[in-house]
Structures are given as C-alpha cells and as structure tokens.
C-alpha cells in the first residue's frame, strides 16, 4: 500500500466525513474499516439494504447513503474488511485483510473507531440469547433478522428506537424493562431548556414512544434486581418493578444502558484519557479540532466522547480540515472559515446530550455488580474476585490482572474494563482517574502467524 497523507480508521459517520473532507482538500486518504461495506454500526450496510428496509429502519438510517456516496471519489482508498491490529509511530498501521497482513503509512492519523456498548453485567448476561441492543440493530440492518420473542432491558433512547423498529416490522418486543426512574427525569429537567435547542431530536423520541404505546408494548419503569435465567440459553428475564417481582419468558434479551467511546486504538498509542463523570466513562483528551496529545493523531466521533451520528460527522470534517492545514494543504484562513459553521452546527446538535445523559443514566446495579456476577465474559471473573483483589491491596486494573485474569481474554477488556475500574475505585475510595484503566497493547485484534507470513512484501516495500 502506498504512502498516504492521512489514515482514517473506521468508516462510520466520523470516518467517512473525515475521509471525504481530507480528499476534498487534495489529501491522499487510506480509509481502513473492519466491515465489508462502509457505514459503521449506525449506517451498517446502508447501501445494500436501504431500499429493502428503509421503511422499518427510518430516514435517520437511509441518510447514511449521503456519506457513503461521499467516499466514492478520487483520493480515497477505502480498504474494506481491514482489521487493524497495530499502530506504530510515523504512522504505520498494520492490519489483516483476507487472511494477509498489510500496512499503510501516513504522517497524520484520524481515529474514528466509534462506540462500544457500555457493559451491562447482570446475573445471566453471558447466556446465549442475551445480546447488546446494538447487536439486535445490526441483525436487523445487515441481515433483516428480528427476534420473535424479545425483552428489551436497560435505559436510553436506543431502547425506543429498536422497539419502534420491531413494531414497524410486525414483531413488537414482549416488553421494555426500563431502569431509569421518575427521579432521573426530574433531575434531567434542568437541562430541558438546553435540550430544546435540539428539539428535533426530542420530537423524534416522542414519535417513537408513541409507536411503542400504540402497539401496547408493556413498559416497566424503575426496574431493579434484573437477572436473566436459563440453563444453556436465556429463558426469562426477572426483575422488580412497582414493588413487585416479575418474570417474563422470552428467547432473546437485548441489553442496553448507553454507549461509551471505543478507546482501544487510542490507548494503544498512548493518547491521554480522562474520566467523564456525566457519561460515566473514559474519554480521550482532545482539543476543539479533535487533536490529541500525541502529535499528528486526531480522534473524531463517538470514539472521542458520545455525541451521536450527526455530531460525529461534523467532528470528522473538523479534524480533517485541521489535518489538511497542518500538512500545508489548506490555508489557515480557509480552515477557520470552513470550520466556523461546522462548530456552530456541532454545538446545536450536542445540546440535547446533557438532558439525555441525566434522564437515562446507566443501571446502577450494573456499574457495581453483586459479588457473584460475572464481569469479565472472556475469563469468567466475578465482581467479588475484583473486590477480593482490592482487599489484597490492588489499586489499579493492571494489577488486578495478576489476581484474576480479568481483561486478559481475547476481548482485551472491551466488555469489562470500565466495570473493573468502577469496582476498584469504589472499593479503594479513589476516583476512576486515580484508578486508571487497562494498559492496551498490540495486537488490538488477534493476528495469526499465517497472516503475518502472508504479508505481501511488495506492500511492505511500498510502505517503507
């Protein structure tokens, strides 16, 4: 792969917008993405399926075609199916594609690695049949699949989106088990004036709620003591709501209580992070352009802090303008002139966030799970194991690995890292920032010797 001016990792809204803007400024762009087709998770497979099921998925989904059209142009090498496993100074990005390792190099790097769902460790969450709600979205978008007997559990706008889509498709969920309380909504009220600047977003939410209510999907609010029961697969969800214990039989459980930045790639190259108390997660420290403390590295979109698809797209464009200017390919005055309206747009689109963050907080019992609950799905470490480690003097997540292998499985802490930090911080009476996070080292995804051996030498020479 030839030398490029900028490598963009991730072809979701932020990555696609960054690539298109950079190419528009005359930069040669390598756009690396794991999926076979561009779109990210939010616009997954949009080019292939928008016509087929646009009516179910809605205009916010089919809108993604505008972005995928924008990357079909000169100056962008969109490398699909590229699984990035190492990023080295310079920057040299190693990835596998079709069973072969390859590399791309460029002086600028824009990470647009998106979000992961916030881990939601409740008893039984490891059973087959239990998935994150985002997985349900992906099954519907990419594969046209709907769970026939599903219960949706947790909090947040995505719950209503997935339920509304299931209603439209004729397979409404059996129930929504919601963890937010009336008190949360009252507390969110002080952000309402700000949120009204993004009134379009709230109106869409109310419309979805209307669809769910009309379909008579039962909603249980303020749910606690949530557990999933079953032997070798999920059979029912049990919980308490309205002062009563309840149980709902089902085949599929969709869990969701917010999304968090996917920081694996940024952490692997030493980008500084901080704890965001409002969003209950670590975010990389970036300036108004998306630039990090690692020279030449930008982060755009949800991987820099959760803002949603529209904000991600704008952030991608802003980062690309800065990268182009830094490379001397765009005059500073032009950069600033083009960025100003984007910044205003971003502020308007972000206005609803504080309201949403307050109205739909994470499920408290999943942030500090019971001792017997499994928190590390890969190595089957329980919350109690981590608390025991804290009792033995363990201060941070990397020390905890020595006690119980948490975070040492193939997912490298993607679905336990925040939980381990939260449990240790609570047990030791320290802040999440003081407690820290897993050290992330390459390979970010497993790479086999066969894939390394198949590294195309011509490729490697060209990269050097």
């Amino acid at each position, binding site marked *: 792969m030839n030398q490029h001016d900028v490598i963009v990792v991730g072809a979701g809204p932020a990555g696609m917008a960054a690539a298109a803007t950079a190419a528009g400024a005359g930069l040669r762009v390598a756009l690396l993405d794991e999926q076979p087709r561009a779109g990210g998770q939010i616009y997954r497979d949009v080019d292939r399926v928008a016509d087929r099921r646009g009516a179910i998925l809605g205009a916010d989904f089919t809108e993604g075609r505008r972005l995928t059209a924008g990357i079909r142009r000169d100056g962008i090498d969109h490398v699909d199916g590229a699984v990035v496993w190492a990023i080295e100074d310079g920057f040299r990005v190693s990835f596998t594609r079709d069973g072969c390792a390859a590399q791309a190099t460029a002086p600028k790097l824009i990470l647009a690695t998106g979000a992961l769902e916030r881990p939601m460790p409740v008893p039984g969450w490891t059973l087959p049949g239990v998935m994150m709600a985002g997985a349900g979205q992906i099954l519907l978008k990419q594969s046209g699949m709907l769970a*026939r007997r599903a219960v949706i559990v947790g909090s947040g706008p995505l719950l209503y989106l997935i339920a509304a889509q299931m209603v439209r498709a004729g397979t409404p969920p059996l129930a929504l088990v919601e963890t937010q309380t009336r008190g949360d909504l009252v507390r969110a009220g002080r952000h309402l004036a700000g949120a009204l600047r993004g009134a379009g977003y709230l109106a869409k939410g109310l419309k979805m709620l209307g669809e769910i209510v009309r379909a008579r999907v039962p909603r249980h609010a303020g749910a606690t003591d949530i557990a999933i029961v079953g032997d070798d697969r999920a059979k029912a969800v049990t919980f308490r709501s309205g002062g009563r214990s309840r149980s709902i039989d089902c085949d599929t459980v969709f869990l969701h209580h917010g999304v968090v930045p996917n920081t694996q790639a940024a952490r692997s190259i030493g980008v500084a992070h901080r704890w965001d108390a409002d969003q209950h997660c670590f975010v990389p420290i970036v300036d108004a352009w998306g630039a990090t403390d690692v020279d030449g590295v930008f982060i755009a979109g949800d991987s820099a802090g959760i803002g949603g698809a529209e904000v991600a797209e704008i952030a991608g464009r802003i980062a690309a303008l800065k990268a182009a200017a830094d490379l001397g390919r765009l005059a500073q005055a032009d950069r600033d002139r083009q960025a100003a309206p984007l910044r205003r747009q971003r502020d308007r689109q972000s206005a609803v966030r504080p309201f949403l963050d307050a109205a739909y907080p994470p499920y408290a019992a999943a942030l500090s799970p019971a001792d017997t609950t499994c928190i590390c*799905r890969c*190595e089957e470490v329980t919350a109690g194991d981590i608390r025991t480690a804290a009792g033995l003097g363990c201060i941070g997540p990397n020390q905890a690995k020595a006690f119980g292998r948490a975070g040492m499985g193939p997912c490298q802490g993607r679905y336990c890292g925040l939980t381990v930090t939260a449990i240790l911080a609570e047990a030791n009476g320290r802040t999440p920032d003081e407690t820290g996070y897993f050290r992330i080292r390459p390979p970010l995804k497993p790479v086999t010797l066969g894939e390394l051996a198949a590294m195309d030498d011509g490729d490697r020479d060209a990269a050097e």
Partner: protein
Amino acid sequence: MKTASPFLELDTAAPQGTVWFDGAPLDLPLGANLAAALLAAGVAVFRHTPATGAPRGPFCMMGACFDCLVEIDGVARQACMLEVADGLRITRPRGGGGQR
C-alpha cells in the same frame, strides 16, 4: 438440521450454500453474515468457554466481544466478522471446565 429459530427473517430469497457445523450440514444464505445466519438457523450455542465450559453465543455482532468464536480450519475466528461461503467446515470450540 434446521431447528426452530427464535428469529424472523425478512430476506429469504438469497441463494443457499451448505456449511458444516460440528459435522452436521446446514443450508445458509451465501454471503450472509455467518453469525447471523447460524442464529437464524437455530444455533444458539457457538462455543463453550475455556475456563468453565459455559455456553456462549453472539453478543455484540461487531467484532468486539469474541463470544461468537468458532473454529474454521483449526483457527478460532469471529463468526460475526465472516460471511457464509459454500463448504465452510465449522467446529464449536469445546470448553475446558476448569483446566486453568
């Protein structure tokens, strides 16, 4: 070996190919996401964990959780990151049950 599926499929017209799952033939839509196609075919348990042998199935569908790991030609692969190809031979990783 098509067992009752917990999923409704909107697209049913795709040409099918045969894959082998733990030695049993399964007809799946060619080019479909492998994890999705297995779920639609009624497969719930994709593997058993190395530590305790607990059953696991797809959880994130986006290549992050590794719960959909299956073995293809002796290599552990994420089913949610693969597409159905005719003749795939897939085996379910067997758990250890406390081998660690």
